[in-house]
Structures are given as structure tokens and as C-alpha cells.
């Protein structure tokens, strides 16, 4: 920076006579501070027109040191009308400037044209009269000398190195008439942060760009494709089509349900017929047996009782069935169904239709278990419950066994074999001992057996 103090130094060194009154730059600055006016310093410039504003109020006319109200209000309130300069003034300045500029232009243009003239080096002829100082009597000889510029090699390198001169400031630095700028805080800096431009194609840093911004970059009018510009008829058509489609689907669904119901009804009727037929056949057979065994009274009574029992059981089962839910009933029926009915009638045949070849439940199961691709099977091979129970001793059974052991030692072996569910248990063989074991339930609190010696 080229400071005022430096400038003063320069001025001082250049012409000391002018600044006799300012022997020291620091003093001069103090003086300036006192006066608070740089104008005398500044006006020392070469240009006599130059003026620099040197105070805030900029009230040059005001020389009295007395403060006035003008100091605290904008200068605009003093300068109400600022008329433009008159035409004469304009003309005068124009003329003055034109002359000045013309001179410069002519000089520049002339200079450029005279270069070519100078290039053509013309010989100069000088008449030379020699005079002998020592002996003036000798007559002088005169000759003509031709002066010619030494021819220069245009391709020769430059003899002198050209040094670039640092440009001096054309005018003294102007006093700065504003308060020092405020330091920018972190927050303000953040406010001014401009995010980097992000390409829609390349984004190696993975910056996020809002969707609307992406669309906006596209440059098309986003409103161009908005719904309010669609034809209303088109909307009507689409809605009508949608409705028709929905209706057709509903109808189809209804129809299929109805068909299924009809089918179910048919099959039920058929089954009913079959059952009736089977019943009749069974009755006929039983009647035949009864007629055969009629003579034995005792037997027939027993048989009748048995039948009665059977019928009662059957009725009971039917009652149960009727009370059961549909699912349970189906389960029960499949479980208890007497396949012999069909075989008896000679109707049992291996199913041949493709539809019934596979259990449809399998298909549904497959869809349910699609959690992982690794799972190939529908269900686990071993059910967890049975797996965990394989080698576990059933406590209840064990206790019973023990009791049994204690109670009746004699048939111990038989009981054990029958009840065993877990792995083989080893029991101390008490039959071998010759001591009589007394049954003592009261004291056997902990299942411990007390032995009498």
C-alpha cells in the first residue's frame, strides 16, 4: 500500500523547499489530525484542478470553526436545487477539451507516420574546414564529409536489457472517508456460502439434489404436463373404462362363487345318496345276519344291545359333529370316514382327474413360506416338539413307575416294559436283597426309601 506518510516522504525528498514547514512526517500527520483537513496537502498535486474531499461534511465553503446544524444532517438538505450547467459552460468545456484531445490525437497520429520517415536514413553532408592551430599560415583545406548511420542488423539481439518500471500511483492516495469495515462473522460467512453446482449426470461426491431442482434443471415447463391441461373427455373416458372394468370383475367373481356353490351342492347330494345306499346295504347285510342268528336268544339279545350301543355312539358322534365348526367337522369327517362304504359298493377308484391329483393346500403352503430362497421344504422335517422330547424322561411316568415299584415288586418287570416312553432306565434290583422292605408312606416324604436292618 502506498500510504499518506510514504507519499509525504516522497514529496519531501523530491522538493524539500516546499515542505520546510514539515520537517518530520510524523509531525505532519499530527498536524493533519489536528486540522482534520488534508486539502492543503492534496492540492500540492501537479493538477491545479484537482480537489479531494477531505472531510465528511465536505463543506468546503465553510471556513469558520464554529459547528453548525449542518454538521449533523445530510448535505442534500442544503442543496435543494442543483441545476445543470448552462449551455455556454458546456460549449466552453467541450471546446477546451476538444482542443486538448485533438493535440494529443494529432501527436499520436503524426508520431506513428514519422517513424517510417526516420527509418529511411538519409546521408548528411557537412563541409569540413581544417585549421592548424600551431601553424596558422598553412592554408586550410576543406572537404565534404558524408555522415551515414551505421547499418543495424535487424536480426541482432537487443543490446540493452529492458527493465520494466514499476508503475507509480498517478495521484496521492485519497483519504478514506468511511468507517472500517466490520469483520465478517462465521454466521455471515455461512450466509454467503454458495453451494457448488452439481451435475445431473456426474455426482461423484454424492450430493443430494432435491427432485424439484432436478426437474427445474431440465429446463422444461413443469406446468406443461399438469392435469389441468388434459382434455375433459379423456378424463371421462378413462373413468368410464375403469368403472366398466370394475363391474365386470365383480360379476365374474360372483359367477365363480355361484358355480362353486352349485358344485358343492351337487357333490353333497351325491354323497348323501351314496351314504343312503351304503346304509341300506349295511342294513340289509345286518338283517341277513340277524335272520341267521335268530334261534339263539341269548346271543341275539347281546347283539341287539351291541347294536344299540353302536347306534347310540353314532348318534352321539353326529351330534358332536353338528356342534363342531366347519373346519373341525371336515377334519373329523376325513378322519372318521369309513372308506369301506365305497369299497363295499365297489365304487372306490383311484382318482384320475388331474385336478384332484394334488392337494391344493400344498400350493397355498408354498406361497406362504417364501421368506428365504434357502428354504426348499414347506415345513421342518422334525417338529420341534417331538425332537426335544425324544430323550427326555417323562417325570409323571417316572413317579408312577417308582410307586408301582414300591407297591408291587412282584410284577415290576411287566409294568416297566409297558409304560416306558423315554430311554431305558436302570433300576436297582431289589428282589435280590434279602431284607424285607416295609411300606412306609408317612416317612417317605422325599421319595427316599428307608431300609430296616
Amino acid at each position, binding site marked *: 500500500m502506498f*500510504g*499518506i*506518510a510514504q507519499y509525504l516522504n516522497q514529496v519531501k525528498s523530491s522538493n524539500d523547499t516546499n515542505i520546510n514547514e514539515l520537517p518530520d512526517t510524523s509531525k505532519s*500527520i499530527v498536524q*493533519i*489530525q489536528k486540522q*482534520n483537513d488534508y486539502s492543503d496537502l492534496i492540492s500540492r498535486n501537479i*493538477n491545479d*484542478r*484537482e*480537489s*479531494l*474531499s477531505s*472531510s*465528511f461534511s*465536505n463543506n*468546503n465553503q465553510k471556513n469558520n470553526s464554529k*459547528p*453548525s*446544524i449542518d*454538521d*449533523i*444532517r*445530510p*448535505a*442534500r*438538505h*442544503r*442543496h*435543494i436545487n*442543483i*441545476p*445543470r*450547467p448552462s449551455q455556454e459552460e458546456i460549449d466552453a*468545456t*467541450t471546446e*477546451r*477539451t*476538444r482542443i*486538448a*484531445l485533438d493535440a*494529443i*490525437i494529432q501527436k*499520436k*497520429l503524426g508520431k506513428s507516420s514519422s517513424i517510417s520517415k526516420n527509418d529511411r536514413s538519409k546521408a548528411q553532408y557537412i563541409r569540413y574546414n581544417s585549421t592548424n592551430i600551431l601553424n596558422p599560415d598553412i592554408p586550410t583545406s576543406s572537404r565534404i564529409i558524408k555522415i551515414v548511420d551505421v547499418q543495424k542488423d535487424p536480426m541482432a539481439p537487443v543490446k540493452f536489457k529492458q527493465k520494466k518500471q514499476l*508503475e507509480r500511483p*498517478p*495521484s496521492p492516495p*485519497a*483519504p*478514506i*472517508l*468511511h*468507517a*472500517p469495515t466490520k469483520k465478517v462473522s462465521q454466521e455471515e460467512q455461512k450466509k454467503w456460502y454458495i453451494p457448488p453446482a452439481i451435475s445431473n449426470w456426474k455426482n461423484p461426491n454424492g450430493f443430494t439434489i432435491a427432485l424439484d*431442482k432436478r426437474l*427445474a434443471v431440465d429446463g422444461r*415447463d*413443469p*406446468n406443461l404436463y399438469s392435469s389441468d391441461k388434459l382434455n375433459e373427455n379423456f378424463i371421462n373416458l378413462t373413468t368410464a373404462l375403469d368403472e366398466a372394468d370394475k363391474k365386470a370383475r365383480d360379476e365374474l367373481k360372483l359367477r365363480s362363487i355361484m358355480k362353486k356353490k352349485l358344485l358343492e351342492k351337487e357333490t353333497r347330494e351325491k354323497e348323501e345318496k351314496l351314504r343312503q345306499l351304503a346304509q341300506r346295504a349295511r342294513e340289509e347285510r345286518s338283517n341277513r345276519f340277524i335272520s341267521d342268528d335268530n334261534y339263539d336268544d341269548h346271543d341275539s339279545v347281546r347283539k341287539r344291545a351291541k347294536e344299540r350301543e353302536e347306534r347310540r355312539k353314532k348318534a352321539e358322534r353326529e351330534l358332536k359333529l353338528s356342534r363342531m365348526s366347519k373346519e373341525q367337522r371336515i377334519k373329523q369327517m376325513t378322519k372318521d370316514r369309513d372308506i369301506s362304504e365305497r369299497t363295499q359298493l365297489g365304487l372306490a377308484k383311484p382318482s384320475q382327474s388331474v385336478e384332484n391329483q394334488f392337494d391344493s393346500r400344498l400350493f397355498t403352503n408354498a406361497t406362504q413360506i417364501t421368506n428365504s430362497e434357502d428354504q426348499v421344504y414347506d415345513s421342518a422335517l422334525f417338529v420341534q416338539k417331538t425332537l426335544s422330547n425324544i430323550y427326555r424322561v417323562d417325570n409323571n411316568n417316572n413317579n408312577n413307575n417308582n410307586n408301582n415299584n414300591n407297591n408291587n415288586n412282584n410284577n415290576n418287570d411287566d409294568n416297566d416294559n409297558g409304560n416306558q416312553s423315554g430311554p431305558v432306565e436302570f433300576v436297582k434290583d431289589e428282589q435280590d436283597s434279602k431284607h424285607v422292605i416295609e411300606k412306609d408312606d408317612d416317612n417317605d416324604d422325599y421319595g427316599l426309601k428307608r431300609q430296616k436292618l
Partner: protein
Amino acid sequence: MNSRINSEYKYTEYLPDYLEQDLNKIKKKQATTESLLTGEQEDLTNQLVKQTDSPIIPKKQDQIIPNDSNIDNNASRALIQRQQQNYVADQPEWHAPWKLMRVIAGHKGWIRSIAVEPDNKWFATGSNDNTIKIWDLATGHLKLTLTNHIMAVRDLVISDRHPYMFSCSEDKTVKCWDLERNKVIRDYYGHLSGVYTMSLHPTLDVLVTGSRDSTVRVWDMRTAVPVFTLTGHKNPITQVEAQSTDPQIISASNDKTIRLWDLAAGKSQTVLTQHKKAVRSLALHPTEYSFASASADNIKQWKFPEGTFLQNFIPRRESIVNTISINQDNVMFAGNDDGTLSFYDWRSGYKFQDLSTTNIPGSLDSEAGILTSSFDKTGLRLLTGEADKSIKIWREDPDATKDTHPGIKFNPDLYRQEIY
């Protein structure tokens, strides 16, 4: 040096205590003299004294001097008139609010410059897409596209004394277009960096250009000879203006200064250093002998020829002002970098309207920004060149009246805060 100057000037920002006391004394004195002069009309003088206490009286001349028969004392009337002369800061003049009239799209880059033809038939725009386009002012139709520059066209000037248009560009060239043949006829070669701004001298055949190389160059229009290279600025020139009387060249720069140049001598005449931030725009008043300069900190009003600081435009706005322009009706427009437009009353320096530009659909929020502006020759239309690649034409609301659109409320207290 900055710190030294600051330390020297810090206490000059505020009035020292002894000055304040003196001021009070003066005021008291004035009050007493007035009361002596007026004598009987004590009520009235009291009023006046009150008015002197507040530096701004929000009243106009005719309001201050009532046509009352009570005031027959000549002395008091003279006093009142003097008072009035002292305190002009009255209610700002009412201006109709401006509104968007037309949007013209066609350029493929930011609009960096707008120039209106002297006959007000058409206007030219220079853009970042290297082209100059000529549009019909009335209809907004494209008339012509001129291509010769290879970088953004930063400024355009149309001469009112020749059939020429001048354009300057970031490609360091200044070109002269013959508008009768639509061809470039002259090049002004010499700038070391992009040329940002230019101006034509109104009475001389001289072209002034300001460049990024922080020089202002003066060219002879016909011979394309560089007459002067005006050095002194330390940063790129943002705008130059030329006028017919001294100072004939005014330049604003990014080094926060404005320089007034003496064209005949080719030297800097005055340096204005009041701005705190880079000065981005200048505008000369068409009828008054004053000008305004816009920087990010303030828009300031100056008086010619000596460059006296007149006032700040208030209220201040926290945004970068890119361009200002003034019309004949004392309306000053300031276009901001964030896409807001501000309209000021020239005399009072008070903002009467603040509105934000309407983005062209499909442009980003960040693309809102006024880059250049110009009133047409009548001052009734405002053309703005914007960062969303559109030209917008604004006009005053014809239906607006003072009652329906009073504008931003006047607050005289703001003057006191913004004296410097």
C-alpha cells in the same frame, strides 16, 4: 494505511462533546432571536423552534408557510423562508408503484447490458451467450441478432449523434457497429483484459471504456486512437459515465472508490472513498447536476462538480446492488443480485417500493438476479436484464393513486442514522 486513516477518523464520525454543546447554544440563541423578532406570535415561533430541534420536518413549503393573515411580520416570514430552505427533507414525493408489464425470453445467457435507441423505437441487449439482440420496444419482437463477439457482451451504447452502436465484451474487444449495414466497422484495440463498461461522450467524438485491467481508456471514435489511459483504480472498473462538463468522466471500481476525471488533462480530479464495499453501478441524473453510486453497503447520492456527498438512499437493504438507473420523474431504480427491485424517490432518497422479480418458470431460485437495467427514453418503461435469461419490462401502475398505493411508510428517523 487503512488502520491509520481509521484511527484518525474514528472520532470524526460522531460530534465531539464540545461541538454538541456549542450546537445547543446556537440553537438556544436562534430560539431567543426568533422570539424577539416575532414578539406577539409566540405560539408560532414556538412551533418553529420545535421544528429546528428536529432536523427533518416532514412538511412541504406550502404547508410550512400557511396563508394566514396573522403572519404579516416580514421579518418572521423571511426567517421562516430561511428555515424552509434549510430543512427541505419533507415527505418524499409520491410515485406510482411499478409493476411487471412484459417478459421477453430469447437469449441463451444472462442479459448483461441493455441500451435503448434515441428514437425509442427499439432496444439492444447484450448477453452472456456472446450475442447482441435487437428488439422492438413496443411489441417486444426480436428484430435482429448480431454475432461477432466471442465472449459475453458486457455493455452496449447507442450513439445519438451517429448511426453507430458500440459494444464491449469480456474478450477484451470494443467494437463499433454501423447500424445502417449491421456490420462491425471499427475495433478499439488495447485493453489488457475484459472490457466491462463503456460510455459515449455527449458532445465530443470520444469513447470511454472501463476494463477489468483497472484502467479507463479514452478512445477517439473515428481513428480508434487511444487518447488516454487513465490509471489510478486498483481493481476492475465496474462502470464509467461520461458527461459534457467537468468532471467529464466518472468511474466506479471494485476498489471501493469513485474517481472523477479531468478529461482535458487526462488526470484524476477527485477520489470519493466513502463507500465501504465495491461500487458496482453509477447513474447520472438526467436533469439535475448530481449522480448516484451503488455499492453493497449503501446507495449514495453525490453532487457535481466537486463530488460532494449529498445523502444515502434509505432504508438500506442487505443485498448487493447490481445496477441503478434514474428517470426524468425523479425515480431511481436499484436492481439487486437477489432478484429484488427497489424504487427510490430521488429528492428525499426514500424508498417507496420494494418488490421481487417473477422468475421465469423452469428457472432456479438462485437464478433470480437483476444484472442490468435501463429506463427507456421517456422514462415510462423500465427494462431489466436478468440472470434467468429474460428481459423484463416494467411500468408504472396507471390506476394507482396516492390513496390506494401510498408506498412504504416514511420514517424520518432513518435520516439521522444514515448521515454519512
